[in-house]
């Protein structure tokens, strides 16, 4: 079943075509990896899906409905969560608060609720959100650091915190932008198992990653981007042997 679909999606920045008529499908329950040389447009595709840029041409649909041109907050509320390539945590705030903000869409009470916090309904919601946040923190192993400021965490834990925050949306689709970047092999192994268990809990995962070992170890399918166009799409073994992919990464000589 198709959860997310890009149909001939294109975006131009002035004269530069960053994403060139890319068609891609993500099936529910799978782990899809997007790889490609630097500057190929991978993060741009994430930004297109999450609504930070509207596509110049083509369509993007989520759960069967078009999401092209919608604002990021609407798309997130619809069940699409993401992490960022350059970590974007709310640094000064605590670990727990970061995840609570992630849980924002799971609540309803706004200004009225803020002023009338003694209402049972408001208190119940706060309790529910707190429980959700702690659950997400436990999933990434950071529950014991709940009250630390986010900026005090070591790099690897900050990446995990971003994932916890994204999970608090209770998303159907989780976009991970280079989640293993800067991690040592031990951390990467932990991450791999974490991503697997996230998928097993019912979340479809779409990730961008440079670490080939990681990608091969975790993906059900791989899509390859080069200069904004998709050049391959299939199971890891197929993609690995694809001459166009090898050429994109290593040049013409290596492909032969």
């Amino acid at each position, binding site marked *: 079943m198709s959860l997310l679909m890009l149909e001939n999606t294109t975006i131009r920045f002035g004269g530069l075509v960053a994403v060139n008529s890319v068609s891609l499908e993500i099936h529910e329950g799978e782990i899809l990896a997007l790889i490609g040389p630097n500057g190929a447009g991978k993060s741009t595709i994430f930004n297109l899906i999450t609504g930070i840029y509207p596509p110049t041409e083509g369509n993007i649909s989520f759960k069967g409905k078009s999401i092209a041109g919608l604002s990021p907050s609407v798309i997130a509320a619809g069940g699409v969560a993401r992490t960022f390539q350059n970590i974007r*945590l*709310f640094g000064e705030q605590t670990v727990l608060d970061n995840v609570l903000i992630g849980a924002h*869409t799971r609540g309803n009470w706004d200004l009225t609720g803020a002023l009338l916090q003694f209402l049972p309904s408001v208190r119940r919601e706060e309790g529910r959100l707190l429980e959700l946040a702690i659950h997400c923190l436990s999933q990434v192993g950071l529950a014991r650091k709940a009250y630390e400021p986010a900026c005090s965490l070591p790099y690897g834990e900050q990446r995990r915190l971003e994932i916890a925050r994204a999970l608090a949306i209770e998303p159907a689709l989780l976009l991970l932008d280079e989640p293993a970047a800067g991690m040592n092999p031990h951390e990467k192994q932990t991450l791999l198992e974490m991503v697997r268990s996230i998928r097993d809990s019912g979340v479809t995962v779409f990730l961008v990653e440079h670490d080939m070992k990681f990608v091969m170890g975790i993906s059900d399918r791989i899509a390859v981007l080069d200069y904004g166009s998709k050049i391959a799409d299939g199971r890891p073994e197929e993609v690995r042997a694809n001459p166009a992919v090898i050429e994109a990464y290593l040049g013409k000589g290596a492909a032969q």
Partner: protein
Amino acid sequence: MLPAITASIDPYTMQILVNIGIGIILALGLTIITGLTGQLSLGHAAFMSIGAFSGALLTIKTGLPFYLTILFSGLISSMVAAAIGWPILRLTGDYLAICTLGFAEIIKVVFLNLEITNKALGLTVPTPASALAMPLTVLIVVILTIIASASIVNSRFGRALKAIRDDEIAAESMGINIARYKVQSFAISAFMAGVGGCLYAHFLGYINPSDFGFLKSIDMLSMIVLGGLGSIPGAVLGASLLSAAPEFLRFMSQYRMLVYGALLVFLMVFRPNGLLGGIDCAELVLRKLGVKPRSAARKQEDTQ
């Protein structure tokens, strides 16, 4: 009992206390939009002005009970804020600040030219219809404002505001509708400024559009910067210090703005967090009372 207490405080001290009270209300209002949501409003005096004149005119023309006048002044200010907020809050940092400043100047010029606000002559404000003495009313409003502000900080709404302050793009990606929350934050800030303005007008007995210019906005900003941006206790402390200071430093009143200016620069360069910014006051108090606070675990880890 309360009337007895209020009677026993001499008028001079009472005046200072009321000024502090009004200052606290204004500072808390600005804290919501600037301290919590991170949107610098350099024209907040305009909402104080709108509240002051609305309140004054309501009392003059209708003689409504005071508590209603206060409420309506706040509402009128917040409605104006919501109206101009939609287009303006799309702007980023510096532009937004200047735009609010421009708006405040426009309001000032308009009020200086309208018949109903008595142009440059200003309005004399009669005593409002109230069962309570003015100082008591101010005290009640201050308490309500502090409770409201503290509640906002620790709520889903407040968390959304802080997220917007820290990283708009990340906040939006977490499902927070930036525009809507900014406008709401702006509106509630303006409500408080309007209430403060209304109290100010009735306490002072006379208002003039020129009272609510750029310098007044800077007064409010200085209070929350001194106290620590985003901190409720900080806003209270900053407002108290800066409202009381002119009285105690009367001998150097001509130096006041000089000191303000230098103070702002000094604070930003050496202590951008102000006096209480970045300090979790609740935790501090708990620790003094012997209750072990949550992050004590971290302190122990650090020392290992």
